[in-house]
C-alpha cells in the first residue's frame, strides 16, 4: 500500500516511488509525482464481503487464472500491487456537498483529451422549494461500471469488457462501429457516441491511475468533498451513508450500478429539472425509506404537428424496419399463399410475376440492409455485428435477418434463374433446395422480427419496453407484406385483363389482421404508459402534445385504413376503379406506417440524468442548432445532430 508522509506545513503526501516502477521490469502507464497529495490515495476496503444485492465484492480469487495479469494500458506490462485490485470499485457521491463547480468534468475531459461536444462525466441538477427555502441538488455522473452492464450485453461487436481488475467496464473504440446501441440501453447516459469520429467512448475509471494507487482524476479534482471513490460499500472517511439512489437517479434495479450516495439533508417534497424533460420527482416516505418517484408535468402545452421533428438520426432504421417487415410479410404471403387457396400466388400461375416480385423483394431488402449500415458511425465495420450472439439482441437480430435474407436469396435464385444451377445440380436436389430455402425463409422471417423487437425491450427506455413493439412489427409484417403482394398482383392481373378483386378480398384478411394487431397494441400501450408514470408517461405526454396532431393523424390513419380495407374487401370492386381505390388505401397505410414508425423512434425519453440549464439539456441543444449558436465550436454542440 501507499505510505503517507507529512511535511513541515502539515500537508500530507503519498510517499510513492518516483517513476512508478513495480516489481518486474515494467513501468506503469501513469506517472505519479513525488509530491502527490494524500487525498488522491485509494483507500483500502472496509472488509465488506458482499454488496447490497448480495453479490460478492471480490470478483475473482487471487489464484484464479484471470488474476495477476497486466491490464496492458498503453502497452505497459506493469501490474498494480493494490491488494483490493480484484474487488469491485465504484464512485461515492455525497449529493449534500456538490457545488457544481465543474472541476470533475474538466479534469476528466482534460485527462481524456475530449473535444467540447463530448464529455464522459456531466453535472446536472434538480431543485425544489420556494425562495428562500430553496434547495438545489447537483448530481455528477459518469459511468457506474455496473454489476449487470447492459452496455456490454447489448453491444453487437463485443467492444465492452468487464474486467476482474476493479470491476471496471471498459469500452474499446477500436472495435466499436458506432451503432450507438449502448447509448440506448444505458440508464445513466455514460457511453458517448461521437458523430464526428463515428465511435463510442466512455469513462474508463482512470484504470491507469488505479494501477498506481490513485483515485480517478475527477475524484482527485473535486473541490467540495462530494465525489469520492473506493471499494464498493466502503464508505469514504467522514461519510456515513451508502444509499443506492437519490432524486433524479434512475432505478438502480435496472443495472445494479456501482455507485453509492450520501444525501442526508432534508429536501423539498417536489424536485424539478431545469432541462427540457417534462419530469419532476416527488418524495414518498415509506417506513424509514425515502424515495423520489418521477412524475410527468403538464405545463399546459399546445398540441402541435412538428412533422419536421420526425426526422432523426434513426431515419435509416425507420426505413430498414418497415422494409424488412414488408419483405418478410410479402415472402410469407407468396410462399404460403397456395396453402390458403390463393392459387394465383403460386409460381406456376404467373411465373414471371412471381419471379419478378421475388427479385424486387430481394432488391428492396438489400437496399434496406445497406441503409441500415449507414446508421453506423463506421459502416465499413458492419461485419462485426455478429460478434455478440451470446448476449446482444442486436447481434441476434442481425444474424436472424441474415439467415432470412440468404434463404430468400437462394430461393429467389432457384426460382428466377434456375439456369444458374441446372448444369451443376440434379433436378431433384434443386427442387429440394428450393423447398428447403423457402421454408427456412418462412421460419427465419418471423423469428428475425421477434429478435428485432427484442432490441427495443430496454428497461432504460420505458416507451419502448412494451409488447406493443412486437405487435407493431408483426402487424407491419402482415399488413405491408400482404399489401405489397396484393398491389403487384392486382396490377399484373389487371394488365392481363383478369379480375383481381377476389384475390385482394382474401388478402384483405391478413392486412386487416395486421392493422388490428397494431391498433390494439397502440391502445394498450397508451394506457400502460400513463399508468407506468415517470419517463413512460412523459413520452406519452410528448406524443400527445409536441406531436399531438401527428399522433391523432396516425391513429386515424390506422383506423381508417382498417375500415377502408374491410370495405374494399367486402365490395370487391374490380378494374381500374377498384385498383385506384386500393392504391389510395395502400398510400394511406404506407404513410401511416411511416409516420408511426418515425414517432416510435423520436418519442423515446430515456431515463437519463437531469441536465443543467445549458449542458446536457436537449431543449438547449435544439435551440442552439436552430438559432445558429451551435455554429461556434466553443458552445460544445455539433451544428448537425446527425
Amino acid at each position: 500500500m501507499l505510505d503517507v508522509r507529512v511535511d513541515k506545513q502539515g500537508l500530507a503526501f503519498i510517499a510513492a516511488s518516483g517513476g512508478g516502477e513495480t516489481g518486474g521490469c515494467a513501468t506503469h502507464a501513469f506517472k505519479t509525482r513525488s509530491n502527490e497529495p494524500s487525498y488522491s490515495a485509494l483507500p483500502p476496503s472496509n472488509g465488506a464481503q458482499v454488496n447490497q444485492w448480495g453479490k460478492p465484492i471480490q470478483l475473482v480469487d487471487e489464484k484464479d487464472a484471470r488474476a495477476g495479469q497486466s491490464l496492458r494500458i498503453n502497452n505497459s506490462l506493469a501490474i498494480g500491487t493494490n491488494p483490493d485490485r480484484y474487488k469491485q470499485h465504484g464512485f461515492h457521491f455525497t449529493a449534500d456537498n456538490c457545488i457544481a463547480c465543474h472541476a470533475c468534468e474538466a479534469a476528466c475531459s482534460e485527462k481524456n483529451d475530449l473535444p467540447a461536444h463530448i464529455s464522459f462525466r456531466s453535472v446536472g441538477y434538480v431543485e425544489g422549494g420556494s425562495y428562500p427555502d430553496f434547495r438545489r441538488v447537483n448530481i455528477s455522473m459518469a459511468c457506474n461500471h455496473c454489476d449487470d452492464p447492459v452496455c456490454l450485453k447489448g453491444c453487437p461487436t463485443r467492444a465492452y469488457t468487464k474486467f476482474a481488475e476493479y470491476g471496471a467496464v471498459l469500452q474499446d473504440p477500436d472495435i466499436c462501429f458506432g451503432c450507438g446501441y449502448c447509448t440506448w440501453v444505458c440508464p445513466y447516459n455514460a457511453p458517448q457516441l461521437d458523430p464526428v469520429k463515428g465511435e463510442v467512448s466512455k469513462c474508463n475509471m482512470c484504470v491507469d491511475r488505479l494501477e498506481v494507487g490513485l483515485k480517478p482524476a475527477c475524484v482527485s479534482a473535486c473541490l467540495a468533498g462530494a465525489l469520492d471513490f473506493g471499494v464498493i460499500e466502503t464508505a469514504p472517511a467522514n461519510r456515513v451513508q451508502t444509499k443506492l439512489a437519490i432524486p433524479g437517479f434512475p432505478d438502480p434495479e435496472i443495472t445494479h450500478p456501482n455507485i453509492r450516495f450520501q444525501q442526508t439533508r432534508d429536501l423539498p417534497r417536489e424536485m424539478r429539472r431545469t432541462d427540457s424533460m417534462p419530469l419532476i420527482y416527488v418524495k414518498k416516505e415509506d417506513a424509514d425509506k425515502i424515495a423520489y418517484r418521477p412524475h410527468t408535468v403538464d405545463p399546459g402545452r399546445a398540441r402541435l404537428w412538428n412533422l419536421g421533428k420526425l426526422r432523426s438520426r434513426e431515419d435509416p432504421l425507420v426505413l430498414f424496419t418497415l422494409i424488412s417487415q414488408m419483405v418478410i410479410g410479402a415472402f410469407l404471403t407468396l410462399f404460403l399463399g397456395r396453402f390458403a387457396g390463393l392459387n394465383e400466388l403460386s409460381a406456376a400461375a404467373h411465373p414471371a410475376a412471381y419471379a419478378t416480385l421475388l427479385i424486387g423483394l430481394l432488391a428492396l431488402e438489400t437496399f434496406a440492409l445497406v441503409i441500415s449500415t449507414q446508421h453506423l458511425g463506421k459502416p465499413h465495420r458492419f461485419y462485426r455485428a455478429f460478434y455478440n450472439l451470446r448476449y446482444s439482441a442486436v447481434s441476434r437480430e442481425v444474424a436472424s435477418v441474415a439467415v432470412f435474407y440468404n434463404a430468400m436469396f437462394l430461393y429467389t435464385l432457384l426460382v428466377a434463374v434456375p439456369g444458374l444451377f441446372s448444369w451443376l445440380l440434379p433436378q431433384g436436389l434443386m427442387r429440394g433446395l428450393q423447398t428447403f430455402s423457402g421454408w427456412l425463409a418462412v421460419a427465419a422471417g418471423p423469428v428475425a422480427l421477434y429478435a428485432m423487437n427484442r432490441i427495443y425491450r430496454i428497461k432504460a427506455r420505458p416507451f419502448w419496453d412494451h409488447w406493443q413493439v412486437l405487435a407493431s412489427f408483426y402487424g407491419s409484417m402482415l399488413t405491408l407484406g400482404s399489401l405489397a403482394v396484393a398491389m403487384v398482383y392486382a396490377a399484373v392481373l389487371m394488365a392481363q385483363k383478369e379480375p383481381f378483386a377476389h384475390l385482394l378480398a382474401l388478402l384483405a384478411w391478413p392486412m386487416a389482421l395486421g392493422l388490428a394487431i397494431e391498433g390494439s397494441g397502440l391502445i394498450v400501450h397508451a394506457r400502460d404508459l400513463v399508468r407506468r408514470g415517470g419517463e413512460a408517461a412523459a413520452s406519452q405526454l410528448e406524443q400527445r402534445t409536441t406531436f399531438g396532431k401527428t399522433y391523432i393523424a396516425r391513429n386515424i390513419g390506422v383506423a381508417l385504413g382498417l375500415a377502408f380495407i374491410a370495405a374494399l374487401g367486402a365490395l370487391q370492386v374490380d378494374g381500374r376503379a377498384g385498383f385506384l381505390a386500393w392504391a389510395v388505401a395502400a398510400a394511406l397505410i404506407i404513410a401511416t406506417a411511416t409516420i408511426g414508425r418515425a414517432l416510435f423512434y423520436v418519442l423515446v425519453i430515456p431515463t437519463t440524468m437531469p441536465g443543467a440549464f445549458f449542458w446536457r439539456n436537449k431543449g438547449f441543444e435544439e435551440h442552439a442548432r436552430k438559432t445558429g449558436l451551435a455554429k461556434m465550436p466553443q458552445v460544445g454542440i455539433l451544428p448537425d445532430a446527425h
Partner: protein
Amino acid sequence: MLFGRRIKNPIKIADKGVMTWKYTTCGYCSTGCSIEVGLNRDGKAVTARGVGDAPVNQGKLCIKGIFEHELFNSANRGETPLLRQKNIDPYRKAGWDAALDHTAAEFKRVQEKYGRDSVAIVSTGQILTEEFYTLGKLTRGVIGTNNYDGNTTLCMASAVSGYKRSFGSDGPPGCYDDFDHTECLLAFGSNLPEQHPIIYWRLKMALEKRRFPVIVVDPRVTMFAQMADIHLPITPGTDLVLLNSLAHVILKEELQDRDYINAHTTGFEDFAQLVAQYDPTTSAAICGIDEDTIRHVARLYAKAGAAMTIWTMGINQSTHGSDSVVAINSLNLITGNIGKPGGTSLSITGQCNAMGTREWSSCSGLPGYRALEKEQDRETIAAYWGIDPEFFPKARGMFMTDIFPAMETGQIKALWLIATNPMTSMPNIPRIKKTLQNLEFLVVQDAYADVETTKYAHVYLPAALWGEKEGVFTNTERRVNLVRKVMEPHGDCKSDLWIFNEMAKRFEQGRKIRFPETSAEVFDEMRELSRGRMLDYSGLTHDRIENERGIQWPCPEGAATGAPRLYTDGVFQHADGKAKLIPLPFVDNNERPDQQFPFWLNSGRVVEHFHTRTRTGRIGNVNKFSPTPYMEMNPDSAKELAIGHMTYARLISRRGYAVVLVQLTHRVPHNMVFIPFHFHECVNQLTLGLLDPYSRQPAFKQCAVKIEPATDQLAAAAANVAARSF
C-alpha cells in the same frame, strides 16, 4: 475479464506525452493556485495540473485552471500591432516601432495641447507585479499624468479604501489558514463556490475536520448560502445597516472585547453613539433580516473564541462598499478578531494580481504602499528613480470611474487601456460607448485582437498572455507567487514589460530613468523599495518563491518564512499605531425598484467564466457550461409576466436595454433577477453603477429594471447570437 472478450485488447488511455513541467501561478482569480504546465517534446503546452505541494491549492485546480494551458493557441490572439488614423477607418498592420512612435507622439501632442493630465492610463489587475511597477514608473515618472488608475476600482477599491480608513493602510490581514482556526465564519456577499472554488475547498476541508457555524449573507440562495448554517437573504444595498445593527447588539449586550478596544483602537465613543441608533427592530425593517436573527448572529460572532468575516463583490460593488468594509473591520476590532488565528476581516480579492497593482503600480500613490500625499514618500521614490520630486503631484488623481466622465466632457482626450475591457465591464455601457468614441486618441493593449474595446481604438498593441512572460503575482492572502515563462509569446506579441520599457524610451525623461529589461531585475528594485516597510519583499527572490510555492509578505531578509497574518501585535498603520472605529450613518441612495422599474437587477459571476470572457469564452470545455447570456428569474414573477423558461426576455432600465435568455429558478426572490456580467452587450447595458463616495467603486448589484417577454423570440435569438463573436 469477467464478461466480454477472453483475448482482450490492450487498453488505450490518452497520453499527452509530457516531457517537462513548468511552474506558474494561475492568471485568473486571486486565489493564487500554483499550476504546473506540461510541455510535450515539441515544446507545446498540452496539459496542466495543480502543484502537489503548493500551500494554497495542494494539487487542486478549478475548471479555469485545468484548461488554462489551452489559452496559448486560443482564437483571435493579437498577431501584430494595428494602427488607424480615425476610428471609423479599417485597421492596418504596423510594426512595433511605428505603433509605439505614433502612440508616444499622440500622447505628447495631447499633453502639450490640453495639459499633462489630459492623457489617462487605465490598467488592470492581471499583469505581473514587475509590469505594474514599471507602468507606475512610466506613468508617474515619465508621462506624468495624474489620471492613472486600474479596473481594480471596479472590484477592490472599496476594500482598499476600507482597510486604509480602519487600519491606516491597505493589506488583507488574514490568510486561508484562518479557516482551520476560526470558530465562526461570516461570509458577506461572497460566493466562494463560484468565485474562488479552491478557497471554498480550503474552507470545506477545515469544516470536515472541525465543524463551526457558517453564516452567509446574500440576496440569492447560492450554493454557498445552501451549505451555510444560516443564510441571511438581505435586501440589496443595506449591508451597512446589518453591520451597524450587529455592532449595536454586541455593545448593548456588552459582548465586546474591552481590553482590545482600549489598547488598539480610537473613536469608540462616536462609534458607539452611532450604532446605538441601529437597533435590530429598526434595522430589520430596512435590511430584511428579522431582529431575532440579527441578535442571534451578533451573539454567535461575539462569543466565538475567534471569528472571521470574508467578503467579495457583494460588499465592494455597492454605494456603501467602503463604509461596509470599515464596518466589517470595526465588527472585528470590537470583538478582538484581528491579527489572530481564525480572527480576521479578510477581503477576498478578485483578479490574480489586483494585489500587485495595489502594492506597486502607483495608481493610488507611490510604489510599496507609499502615498503621494507624503513628502517623504515623494522624495524617496524620486531619488530612487532619479527625477525631481516636484514632478509628482501631491495627491492622487481620478479613479477610473471618474476618468470616464472626464473623457465624456472633454477634460481627458487620450486614453491608454491595458488588459482591461470597459466595453463589457463598466456600468452603463451606452454611456461608455459614446465616451470612447469621442476620444481623440485611444490605444488598447490586450492579448486578444477582438476584445470589444478595439472597436473605437486607434492603436492596438498585441500583448503576451499569462505564461508567455515571467514575474510574480500576489494573491488574496498576500502570497507572492511566481509565473515562469512557459511559451514564447504568440505571433509578434510582446510582454507588457517590454511595451512599457519601449514606450519609456520614446520620452526624454524616460531615457534618463533606469528601466531594467528583465523582470528579475525589476523585482530587485521592488525588493529594495519594500525593505523595512509593511509589504517587505526583502527576503524574496524569484527562485526562492518557486521553491517554496509562494511566500506571504512581509518576508524580511533573513526570515525563515513569510508572515501568515498582519497586525498580530495590534499595531496598525495610522500615525498613532491604532485602528480607527468610524461612525457610519446609512443613507439609502440606491436606485430602488419602483412602479416603473419593479425589479432589482443583480449581477455577478459564474465559475466557468472570468471577467469579460476574452479568455474563457474561447475554450470549449470551459465556455460550454455558460455559452450565452442568461438571467435567473423567479418563476412566480415570470408567470405574472408570461415569461417562459428558456425563452428570451427584454429588460429595460433608465440607461439602456438588453435581451437575455431566461432561466426560471427559485434561487432569486420575486423582485430580483440575476445576470452573470461576463457577456458583452448584456447586463452592463442596464446597470447604473452609482459610485461609492470614498472608493469610487460602482454599485453593480443595485439598480432597477423592468422586464417583458421578447415579442419576437426568433429575432431575439438572432440578436443574441450576433452579439458575440466568442
